[in-house]
């Protein structure tokens, strides 16, 4: 049976921003559609409208010529529209089966049978009776997909589904999606990853600043053409000129172990590596394999054995982050608003926060506000932070601007080593480019970087050496030139 979904003249206006500006699109079953755009382009708003989470100001949605009134997620479900959100809508402490039965009207046994049939058909294997928090990201996504399939959907919307998946899991997902498509389910795939569009989709619609800018066949496009449409200008490609790094060792980690008391953290076992001056060491891995613990151990949020970390010929394993900063280390944590900055404080106050001692920001315990503000203004102009109001609370900065501010702040002291954790996570292409350029510049000034990231493309672009973390253990350290993303994928999944 054919399904057609038609969006006509949908508009959604928020105070100060037009999220969707008169968007019209038509989808037909049998094809996989990509909805492409940067963060803030309006694609998430559009799919939230389709799934009933957001009600549009204007416009209508028709499924097979029937006008739909989507006022709640329940309406979307009733009208056979299934949606897998980027942030999973699962109940972590409930079992898989409880998660699935909660919005189903079927009896326990009937539902179990149905789930078993679906899992067999698509080769999923998930234990239904364990709590969801014990599942990997890929398995959680499968639970979400099963939840949709139980209702025999006509339309399946996937919102940035691969952001948490490994290479292997991504391939599996793509196979499943193609199968669903062949079975007549209309698939709408939302992403900002160009490679995935090329690999999976038949047609692509590009959005920019709330507007639909192009609809085309994927076979008529290539990565560059799509990127330019998405950003609205020609992007320069960044490449690191890989010089021979020095052999002057800056930091050395020896037999570092961390055993957590929290069973939901990962233990680190027997970590050994070193980084030379001017070098970037990339650490790849699927999130949740010990990256955040490793970052905390390196930054001093978790104190370890004094001799396990040697930095610039000093043993600093037992020092806290503030003390480590005095040895010229700098940190950019993963969670920008929780760990790196204090959301309710102004930009200039955040700038002052990591510079208690080695600056003239404070006189006899008093805040030297003019000095801090002067300095903040310099960061804002040097690092292209798009605001001129340094009294603005940092929570109102966009992710990209906030990240630039944080990196800028960290580089004030001209540190010898910058440790960053997912520095471009969730940023748009423009901001990613800028951060990448900045990181390359750091290396060019003979300073070092430890880059912990879940984005393999980023690691391959920026690193001189790469290692993979899996279940708290580091793989051998490899030269970046000898590594491919396939090889990283295998190591990230625990293979050899």
């Amino acid at each position, binding site marked *: 049976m054919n399904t057609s979904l038609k969006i006509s003249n949908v508009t959604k206006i928020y105070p100060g921003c037009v999220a969707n500006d008169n968007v019209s699109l038509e989808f037909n079953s049998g094809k996989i559609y990509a909805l492409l755009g940067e963060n803030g382009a309006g694609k998430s708003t559009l799919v939230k409208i389709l799934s009933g989470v957001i*009600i549009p100001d204007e416009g209508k949605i028709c499924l097979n010529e029937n006008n739909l009134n989507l006022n709640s*997620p*329940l309406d979307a479900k009733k009208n056979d529209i299934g949606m897998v959100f980027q942030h999973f*809508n*699962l109940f*972590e*402490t409930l079992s898989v089966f409880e998660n699935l039965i*909660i919005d189903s009207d079927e009896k326990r046994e009937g539902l179990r049978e149905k789930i078993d049939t679906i899992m067999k058909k698509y080769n999923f294997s998930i234990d239904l009776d364990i709590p969801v*928090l014990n599942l990997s990201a890929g398995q959680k996504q499968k639970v979400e997909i099963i939840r949709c399939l139980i209702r025999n959907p006509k339309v399946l919307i996937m919102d940035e589904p691969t952001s948490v998946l490994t290479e292997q899991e991504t391939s599996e997902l793509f196979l499943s999606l193609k199968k669903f498509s062949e079975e007549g389910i209309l698939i709408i795939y939302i992403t900002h990853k160009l490679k995935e569009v090329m690999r999976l989709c038949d047609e692509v619609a590009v959005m920019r600043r709330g507007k639909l800018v192009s609809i085309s066949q994927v076979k008529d496009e290539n990565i560059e053409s799509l990127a330019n449409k998405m950003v609205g200008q020609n992007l320069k490609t960044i490449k690191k000129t890989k010089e021979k790094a020095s052999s002057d060792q800056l930091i050395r980690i020896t037999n570092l172990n961390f055993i957590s008391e929290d069973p939901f953290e990962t233990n680190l076992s027997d970590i050994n590596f070193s980084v030379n001056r001017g070098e970037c060491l990339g650490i790849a891995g699927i999130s949740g394999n010990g990256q955040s613990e490793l970052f905390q151990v390196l930054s001093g949020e978790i104190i370890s054995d004094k001799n396990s970390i040697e930095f610039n010929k000093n043993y600093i394993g037992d020092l806290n982050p503030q003390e480590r900063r005095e040895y010229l280390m700098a940190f950019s944590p993963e969670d920008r608003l929780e760990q790196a900055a204090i959301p309710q404080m102004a930009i200039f106050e955040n700038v002052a926060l990591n510079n208690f001692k080695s600056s003239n920001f404070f006189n006899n315990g008093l805040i030297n506000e003019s000095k801090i503000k002067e300095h903040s203004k310099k960061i804002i102009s040097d690092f292209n932070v798009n605001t001129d109001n340094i009294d603005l609370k940092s929570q109102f900065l966009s992710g990209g601007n906030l990240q630039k501010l944080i990196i800028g702040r960290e580089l004030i002291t001209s540190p010898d080593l910058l440790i960053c954790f997912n520095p471009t996570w969730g940023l748009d292409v423009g901001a990613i480019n800028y951060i990448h350029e900045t990181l390359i510049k750091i290396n060019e000034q003979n300073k070092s970087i430890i880059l912990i990231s879940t984005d393999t493309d980023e690691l391959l672009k920026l690193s001189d050496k790469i290692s993979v973390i899996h279940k708290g253990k580091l793989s051998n350290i490899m030269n970046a030139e000898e590594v491919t993303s396939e090889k990283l994928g295998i190591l990230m999944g625990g293979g050899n």
Partner: protein
Amino acid sequence: MIIDINFVGLIIASIMASAVPLILASCGELITERSGVLNLGVEGMMIIGAISGFALMTITGSLIIAVFGAMLAGVLISTIFAFLTQTLITNHVATGLALTIFGIGISAMIGKNFVGIPGKEFPVLFEGLKDTIPLLSPILFGHSIVFYFAFALPFITSYFLKKTKIGLIVRAVGDSPESASNQGINVRLVRYACILYGGAMCGLAGAYLSMIYTPQWIENMTGGRGWIALALVVFSTWNPIKILIGALIFGGLTIIQFHMQAIGVRIPVQFLTALPYIVTIIVLVVISRDSRKIRLSTPSSLGKSFHKDN
């Protein structure tokens, strides 16, 4: 020394009776907290229940009206809390504390006219069987219906949470209100219902105190039991069966230390009075040490306000 076996039975029965208000209030609060709402107004709701029950009994003479009236009073006062925290999105902690202060104040005001009035006798069940089995008879028979209900409640609560669909929805809302809302569950409605249910159980707990346990009205007669009930919920790691254990230990030590004081055991009184609080918490902490289970039973959204962004 010969110990009368029926005397032991009576002591156990009195321990169980003193645990009743704790079990009722804790099991009510447990449902509220499992939906992600932290209501610190337990003490206030209990005392409102106590004065409402006693006042209605004195005025109408009907025990049934008094008991259900006390529960209704608990529901009404918890509706204030629900309206503030769920509709006006106020902070749970501050609102709950205000509720307790309000409850204590208003109950003292209403209660002025009821001080010194004797209570009524509350009918007990199975009184004829009281002398049939040694030791067990005083434990099992001759109690009010509220007593039997209280000891069934932890098991009912456990069954409700684990086995019923509505229980599953309550847990889901407490785990992640965002996900629940996206699944089409009306989070606000579920939370209102859980808050009101908690209010009803606290009202009943209060009525038990003023109508059955010590049938009279004394200002501030809950005497901190609401706070103990709150602590039991947390230290039992949101497990109704462990609430039962905790309430019995607390009740038991309270009764036993009275007897010890009466016999004249040479331990400082202050220590004896503090003993139930310390031991209950230690025991509950020890039996709930499994951090995996704690993670699974702790409502992740506890105390956090939820409002749909739109």
